[in-house]
């Protein structure tokens, strides 16, 4: 199969189908509605099922039910709808069920607007719903990367019995790029012996629940979950670096903003400013290693975000006081331009070699 020109939201949907997802429960919301519509058309073609739920809350709970039967299942939404899904996501974590949830982020808070934003960073990386938990969050920066990360998301979900969030901004969902779908080996998953499919004489009954009335028992369950999160932290960190080896300054950006930032870096390099980029691909677990490796050599880190400054907290933790951490961000759905990021680099660089 050669390259095809597709819209970001549709790439996510097709990639999910390639990853073996046959069930999708969703509710339309801009700017991710093409994903829902694509699934409605595509899933019946592969013997799967698309169902439009009456709300985001119902959709995530349908996902919960389907995930309990052991199939690969997905839902997607955008910020206000994603907030509504938090209840169900907490239950998926508590009951240890695998599912993929896509959030194509738009401007907030409240109804906000339908422009691209990254202002759900806290919500996706710091739990979001109630209880002690973390969820793996993957943030692609290009449509080809979506193809890879969508399958990764399903594999991680099955491997660890956890929901996984695929996060993009509205620009990623709406842009068109040529992509190629390559068939990839799917994660080898043990028979899902925990799935509730009717006992059919194979032992059981099996129970899926997140209820644990006894405090000591729930604490044990939480420590078990924490152990799992620690394993995910060990194994599932993803990031990319660009021109960091000789860098005096390191930009930190993810998603489409990272691509804009790369252009600003090239522009600054032409002026002799040694600047590089760390691009977190997994937002949780946050990649600490590239910071530890560079933080004693650089003069400053600059977090660039389409939010008022959320990822910067993780950058600060990773830098841990070894270097100053600066910030440039636009919020409310405004996409930073290459020029204004360049200006920020030059300001921080303080006229070095300019």
């Amino acid at each position, binding site marked *: 199969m050669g390259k095809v020109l597709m819209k970001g939201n549709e790439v996510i949907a097709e990639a999910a189908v390639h990853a073996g997802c046959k069930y999708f429960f969703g509710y339309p919301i801009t700017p991710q509605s093409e994903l829902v519509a694509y699934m409605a058309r595509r899933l019946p073609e592969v013997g799967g099922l698309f169902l439009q*739920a009456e709300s985001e809350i119902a959709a995530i709970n349908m996902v919960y*039910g*389907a995930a*309990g039967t052991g199939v690969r299942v997905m839902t997607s939404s955008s910020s206000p709808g994603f907030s509504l899904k938090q*209840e*169900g996501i907490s239950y998926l974590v508590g009951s240890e069920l695998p599912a993929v949830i896509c959030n194509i982020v738009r401007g907030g808070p409240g109804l906000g607007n339908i422009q691209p934003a990254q202002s759900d960073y806290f919500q996706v990386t710091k739990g979001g719903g109630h209880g002690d938990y973390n969820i793996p969050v993957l943030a692609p920066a290009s449509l080809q990367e979506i193809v890879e990360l969508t399958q990764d998301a399903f594999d991680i979900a099955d491997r660890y019995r956890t929901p996984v969030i695929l996060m993009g901004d509205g620009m990623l969902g709406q842009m068109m790029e040529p992509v190629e779908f390559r068939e990839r080996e799917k994660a080898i998953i043990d028979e899902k012996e925990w799935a*509730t499919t*009717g*006992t059919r004489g194979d032992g059981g009954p099996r129970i899926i629940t997140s209820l644990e009335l006894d405090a000591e028992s729930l604490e044990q369950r939480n420590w078990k979950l924490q152990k799992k999160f620690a394993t995910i932290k060990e194994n599932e960190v993803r990031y990319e670096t660009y021109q960091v080896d000789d860098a005096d300054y390191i930009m930190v950006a993810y998603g489409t903003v990272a691509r804009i930032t790369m252009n600003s870096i090239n522009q600054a390099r032409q002026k002799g400013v040694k600047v590089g980029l760390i691009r977190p691909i997994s937002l949780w677990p946050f990649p600490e290693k590239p910071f530890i490796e560079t933080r004693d050599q650089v003069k400053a880190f600059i977090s660039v975000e389409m939010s008022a400054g959320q990822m910067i907290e993780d950058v600060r933790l990773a830098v841990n006081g070894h270097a100053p951490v600066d910030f440039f961000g636009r919020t409310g759905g405004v996409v930073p331009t290459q020029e204004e990021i360049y200006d920020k680099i030059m300001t921080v660089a303080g006229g070095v070699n300019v």
Partner: protein
Amino acid sequence: MTMKTVFRKTNGLTDKPTHYCPGCTHGVIHRLVGEVLEEMDILEDTIGVASVGCSVLSYEYFNCDMTQAAHGRAPAVATGIKRVLPDRFVFTYQGDGDLASIGISEVIHAAARGEKITVIFVNNAIYGMTGGQMAPTTLIGQKTATTPYGRTESVQGLPIRVSEMIATLDGAAYIERVSSHDVPHIMKAKKAIRKAFETQKKGLGFSMIEVLSTCPTNWGLAPHESLDWVKDNMIPAYPLGVFKNKEGGN
């Protein structure tokens, strides 16, 4: 002399003792559902969905695969299960706080879609597990923790008759309200529950059995007084009968 078994434990329930208060009819209703699943020989093909509230632990009592759902969301969870496994039997077991309040949207839309699931809706006109607060089904004049002066129409509005409301939806195939306050009604309730699962088996659409039930603890009544309270107060407000039968007849 040969012994004849006239009564035994149903295989539809596990051996686990239930946590229900004395005089509560959850145990009876559990048993009816368990007996029906056993008699229809579908225990191994059934996935139940437990709700939030007093029946939250029902997943420990039914002898089939069970999933515990978030507050009110059981019909959505059941939808997810049934859509993946259309040849299995899927039921929810929900109280009135769960189904008629926070979960009213999920049950209405599951019925409207004609989901081939069975909802066992236990209505005792009060929040039990949470400590006796008003439910959407609380009767006018009924005193609860959050209607200490009695429910009034002007402040809290009127109770919802869920069965009548759901029966208006075209996706609803079998809707019946029964009671658990005496033996004849319990026998009738079992027939209704069986009819609901048979409706599911035939793929006719959504089925729901509303069972009027007791809450001696939060009503502040003795068990036998509670049974009378169902008969004297609840049945007049929530008339028994079949509200929808797609097949026709009874």
